[in-house]
């Protein structure tokens, strides 16, 4: 009795184990899908705030910054005081007073100016002219304040209310003490300079520098534009030879100086004040110190070429908005210009070469981003990617990405904001407001450049003349922007699949039809031989295609063109010979050996066409087929092209189509065929009208499975194409397929990075495609099995 119980228990356990073991395949497929999906998902998640901290500061902050590790922030106050704040705690580590400021000493408390931030709006639009007069009492008291700021990496350039420019370097040095990182902030190399002799308030300032030159442009409260340029040439002995240039370039902006007629003079004259003065509302200078952009209260942007500092000239004048341009800035790389206006709209502009009429370079709007509801007052670019921050006067902060045109994060300061900073690694945002609050957000923004649109749509990249599909994941320079459009790769996959199926499907199905219906029983062993060929490793096919077939075809391309004609001719000859071959000779092999009989003829045809290669090249292609293709058809012939891939993949796919469709054709019940033949149909009619329709689901499933195989085939496309991600249906150039792209790029892709996840997305696409195709094929096969059971 005990034994029986034990046996029954064993039986039950086994049933469970086998059931679970049997269903593992389901789990494997689901796990595959879910895992790949989980790797792709973060691409579309956007940015999020990891930590939010608020601290209080002592007064009105005009500039703000943070070190690379977000451990120490600095605040520059209106009165020239600088404080270094340790970030986790909010403690002030160090105080400092910038030389050249005549305000109260660093320790004294300063009454914050409640009325406006550093981001002053154009007075004419703000509707309070008295704005400027507020500064004057301070000036009378012998104090000056900082009125404008420009950050050029570590170099901080400050404009004051009395027309001075102060320069200071704020650096963070790293040192290690018993494996702990210590960061020390420092202020170095301060300079003071009177840029405006009239001692007017500096309203906007921009400055750029390199090893030997410094270019600074400032605009004053009375809308004068001043250019200052210093060049220091080091001689052998270390003493510098200094050239200095100071120039008032306000006149460039005047209408009378411009030879370009205004598009809408009416609008301008309506707003213009009696002196015909242009209200300068924002400035931007690129790091090449060549293009100075000036935004005006009329919504215009002037592009002033200052390459020759002696003779700057207005290169372009363009209306970018109906409202005043209140903020200008550059996306990383200093090529794309970010424009924010009084109405709150944010757009990105770039110099594009126009095709018609003059092929001149003009500014064009390439991206538009989510609008603010209040005037944009600040634009801060990321130092890591093409992202940037915009801030409106109501304290709303948007984290944008130029290329993907998405706004990833919305943040808000409490009161009117005064200064904004983006951490060097792009993972932290700091802002101060008039209520002396300092907000610090640690953010996670892993994949800002990816949206469905950048992956599958045309994107206008920097340096391109129009929106395009581009795949280019790595580049030479640091500010290179990865271009991750999957469209060229999908196109490549489709191209390779189509060409290989065009070659493989007819051959495979016809050969299967012949084998199942007409082939002599004695030579049916051909079938397993071809079946074995289905197991041929694709790396062998790829190697032969790339290193033997491609150079060979390149040499005998004209022969390839005439080969079909030769083959048809030789088949005709074979048919003729066969007809007149005495029946005695054929014996019992009267039918079903045509395929073997044809072998020498087809070899002969191929041999003859290769032999005729140079003759046909001179007749058909005027002696050089490459030139002929290029001149007559406009096609470029690559050695490793789609034709080669089509043939090589055909090798991989033909046995598959052949085996599956032959199986379904052989399984057509014999009584159907016998009935057809008995009714007087010829064998061919029976094959086409009875066998093919009955076996059609099997043939269909064969094509589907071959399609799946061709879509996912990696090694052949990797080895037999040039792997260039271009979009062109030409038979004679290469392509890059999704699968080969994964194989090429994933070893280089950092884990968890954007490229890594995009490659997983490519794998997901392949998975979904083949899943649908295979499921459909399998369902058809299951149905067919049932049908045959009935017949």
């Amino acid at each position, binding site marked *: 009795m005990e034994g029986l119980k034990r046996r029954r228990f064993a*039986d039950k356990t086994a*049933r469970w184990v*086998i059931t679970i073991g*049997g269903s*593992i*395949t*389901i789990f*494997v*497929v689901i*796990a595959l899908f879910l895992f*790949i999906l989980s*790797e792709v998902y973060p691409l579309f998640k956007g940015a999020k705030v990891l930590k939010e901290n608020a601290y209080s500061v002592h007064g009105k902050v005009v500039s703000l910054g943070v070190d690379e590790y977000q451990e120490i922030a600095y605040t520059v106050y209106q009165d020239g005081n600088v404080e270094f704040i340790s970030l986790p705690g909010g403690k002030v580590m160090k105080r400092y007073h910038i030389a050249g400021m005549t305000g109260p000493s660093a320790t004294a408390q300063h009454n914050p100016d409640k009325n406006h931030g550093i981001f002053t709006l154009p007075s004419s639009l703000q509707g309070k002219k008295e704005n400027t007069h507020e500064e004057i009492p301070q000036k009378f008291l012998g104090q000056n304040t900082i009125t404008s700021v420009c950050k050029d990496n570590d170099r901080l350039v400050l404009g004051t209310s009395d027309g001075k420019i102060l320069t200071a370097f704020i650096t963070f040095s790293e040192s290690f003490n018993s494996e702990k990182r210590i960061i020390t902030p420092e202020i170095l190399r301060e300079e003071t300079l009177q840029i405006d002799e009239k001692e007017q308030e500096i309203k906007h300032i921009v400055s750029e520098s390199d090893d030997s030159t410094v270019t600074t442009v400032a605009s004053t409260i009375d809308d004068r534009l001043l250019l200052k340029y210093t060049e220091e040439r080091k001689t052998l002995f270390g003493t510098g030879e200094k050239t200095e240039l100071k120039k008032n370039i306000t006149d460039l902006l005047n209408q009378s100086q411009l030879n370009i007629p205004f598009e809408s003079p009416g609008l301008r004259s309506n707003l213009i004040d009696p002196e015909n003065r242009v209200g300068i509302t924002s400035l931007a200078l690129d790091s090449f110190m060549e293009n100075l952009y000036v935004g005006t209260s009329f919504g215009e942007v002037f592009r002033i070429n200052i390459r020759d500092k002696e003779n700057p000239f207005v290169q372009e004048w363009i209306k970018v908005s109906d409202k005043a341009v209140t903020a200008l800035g550059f996306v990383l790389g200093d090529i794309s210009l970010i424009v924010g206006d009084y109405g709150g709209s944010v757009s990105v502009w770039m110099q594009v070469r126009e095709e018609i009429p003059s092929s001149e370079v003009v500014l064009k709007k390439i991206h538009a981003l989510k609008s603010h509801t209040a005037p944009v007052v600040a634009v801060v670019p990321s130092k890591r990617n093409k992202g940037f921050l915009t801030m409106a006067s109501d304290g709303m902060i948007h984290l944008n990405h130029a290329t993907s045109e998405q706004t990833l994060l919305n943040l808000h300061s409490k009161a009117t904001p005064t200064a904004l900073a983006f951490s060097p690694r792009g993972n932290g945002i700091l802002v101060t407001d008039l209520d002396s609050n300092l907000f610090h957000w640690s953010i996670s923004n892993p994949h800002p450049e990816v949206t469905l649109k950048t992956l599958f749509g045309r994107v206008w990249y920097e340096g391109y003349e129009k929106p395009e599909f581009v795949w280019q994941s790595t580049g030479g320079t640091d500010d290179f922007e990865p271009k991750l459009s999957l469209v060229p790769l999908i196109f490549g996959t489709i191209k390779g699949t189509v060409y290989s199926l065009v070659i493989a499907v*007819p051959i*495979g199905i*016809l*050969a299967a*039809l*012949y084998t199942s219906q*007409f082939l002599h029983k004695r030579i049916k062993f*051909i079938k*397993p*031989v*071809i079946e*074995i060929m289905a*197991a*041929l*490793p*694709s*790396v*062998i096919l*790829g*190697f*032969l295609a790339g*290193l033997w077939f491609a150079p060979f075809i390149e040499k005998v391309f004209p022969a390839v063109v005439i080969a079909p004609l030769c083959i048809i001719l030789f088949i005709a000859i074979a048919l003729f010979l066969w007809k007149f071959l005495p029946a005695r000779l054929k014996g019992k092999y009267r039918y079903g050996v*045509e*395929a073997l009989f044809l072998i020498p003829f*087809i070899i002969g045809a191929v041999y003859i066409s290769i032999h005729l*290669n140079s003759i046909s090249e001179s007749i058909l292609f005027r002696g050089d087929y490459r030139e002929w293709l290029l001149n007559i058809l406009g096609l470029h012939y690559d050695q490793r092209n789609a034709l080669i891939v089509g043939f090589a993949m055909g*090798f991989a796919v*033909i*046995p598959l189509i052949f085996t599956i469709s032959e199986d379904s054709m052989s399984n057509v019940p014999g009584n159907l065929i016998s009935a057809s033949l008995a009714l007087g149909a010829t*064998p*061919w*009619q029976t094959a*086409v009208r009875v066998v093919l329709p009955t076996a059609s689901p099997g043939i269909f499933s064969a094509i589907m499975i071959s399609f799946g195989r061709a879509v*996912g085939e*990696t090694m052949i496309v*990797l*080895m037999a194409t040039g792997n260039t991600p271009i979009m062109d249906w030409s038979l004679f150039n290469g392509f890059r397929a999704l*699968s080969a792209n*994964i*194989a090429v790029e*994933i070893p280089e892709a950092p884990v968890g990075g954007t490229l890594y996840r995009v490659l997983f997305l490519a*794998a997901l696409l392949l998975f979904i495609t*083949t*899943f649908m195709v*295979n*499921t459909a094929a*399998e369902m058809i096969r*299951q149905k067919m099995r049932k049908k045959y059971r009935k017949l």
Partner: protein
Amino acid sequence: MRGFFKSGNPYIWLTACALTITILMMGGLVALIMMNGLSVFWPHNIIKFALKDGSVVMGEMVKREPIPFKKDAYRTKLKIGNRDVYGLDFRWIENVDIEFREYPAHALTFERREWGNMYGFLKGIKQNDDVLPLTVENLISLLEENHSLVERIRYIEKSVIGDINFKMEKYRLALKRLTSEEPSPKVHKKIEFLHAKMENLEKTYREKEHVLAELYSGVMRKEIVVLLASDEEKIVPLFQVIRVYAPNEMGALSKLGFYTKKFWEFLSEEPREANTEGGIFPAIFGTVMMVFLMSIAVVPLGVLTAVYLKEYAGDTIIARIIRISVSNLAGIPSIVFGIFGLGFFIYLIGGGIDKLFFSETLPAPTFGTGGILWASLTLALLTVPVVVVATEEGLSAVPKSLREGSFALGATKFETIWKIVLPHATPGILTGIILAIARAAGEVAPLMLTGVVKLAPSLPIDSHFPYIHLERKFMHLGFHIYDVGFQSPNIEAAIPMVYTTTFVLLLIILVLNTTAIIIRNKLRKWYSAASL
């Protein structure tokens, strides 16, 4: 004529043509690989051309082709070797430039460790500043002597110093672990003990290094002088020479013997010169071990699934879903399995194992990087459907009467399956394993992501505990083809080796598949006989 077309005969010929083309394509492919792969090691005669411009070239004839648009003009591709002298391995010579040609009887082929083959005549051995004459026989005996020295160097470099490095690494890790523990007298003592041991090792290492240096200087001292075709003299260290032979003096039989020896070397030795010369043993070993590990993983999974489908499930929804997933697993592109293996096995599971058990070596990964285990598991997932389908067929072949007999005697279902059905289905399971192995042996794309390398420093099995190193990277025949054919610096010189490797791989796969198909056909016959 119309009736002729109406009968459909021409169309039948058309379909026949499709089959003929298929047969020719497949046959041509195999013939091409065999022709190119098998001819590589045949000792070709050395031909010497005196050119019209007065220069002389010597080498092996590789191929000859007509020059288009010129009558009776052809050019010959000559492997001139001596890459260190000429910079190129090959040279095209047009027949109009040739003054006369000959096959010099004493011309020698020198196989070298570096710079490829050298063709020339032996002048003598260098002794101080003189050149003493030397016969080829003496040279060969000198070479043998030399080889035993080289073997010894190899042994010390690989085994002895490898051992020392292995132990050193072990102590270093132990030390690292100890220093992270709470300091106590016991720990301190242990640390000191380890330090002493490491010092000892260091001493033996230095001794061995000294021995090596001496051996090297001994080997490098002997130099031979070779006279090249252009009457230039070239001094070659004996150490560089692997083999010397005079192909023009060899008969067909000795050439065949030479060929066999070379082919065996190819299969049993390690690669040299960035894989373009030498053998492919590590690649064969890696492939075999990988498919072996894969078989261990795939057989239980595949057989369980097949048994469930055939014996338990019937025609339920679950069975249909399983069938769909099996056919999907068969259809999902291999690169998708590869990327799954990379993300799931390597970074997720491997990374986790590293954090738990190998934290002292971090950030250098142990299991968190590609290795033979992960590659095998990835391929196991890929080949499950092959095993399932073949096993199912094997199970179908078991006659119903056997099962019913077993039930009638009172056996439970499991007992029937375990003791009656499965033993009878073994040929089917075997077919499945063979087909899976054939598939895995030829698959490359997923391996590229999960642990295959162009040159593995050591095999996954060696004499160090735990003897089988599943975390190691490995070499693979298929990847070897891709890598040497497409990524080696000197592709033209490497192509013959790629053909030979391709031939070996093709042979393995054809043999495996043929065996599987033969077993399956036997099974089918048995099945149809049993069902009667």
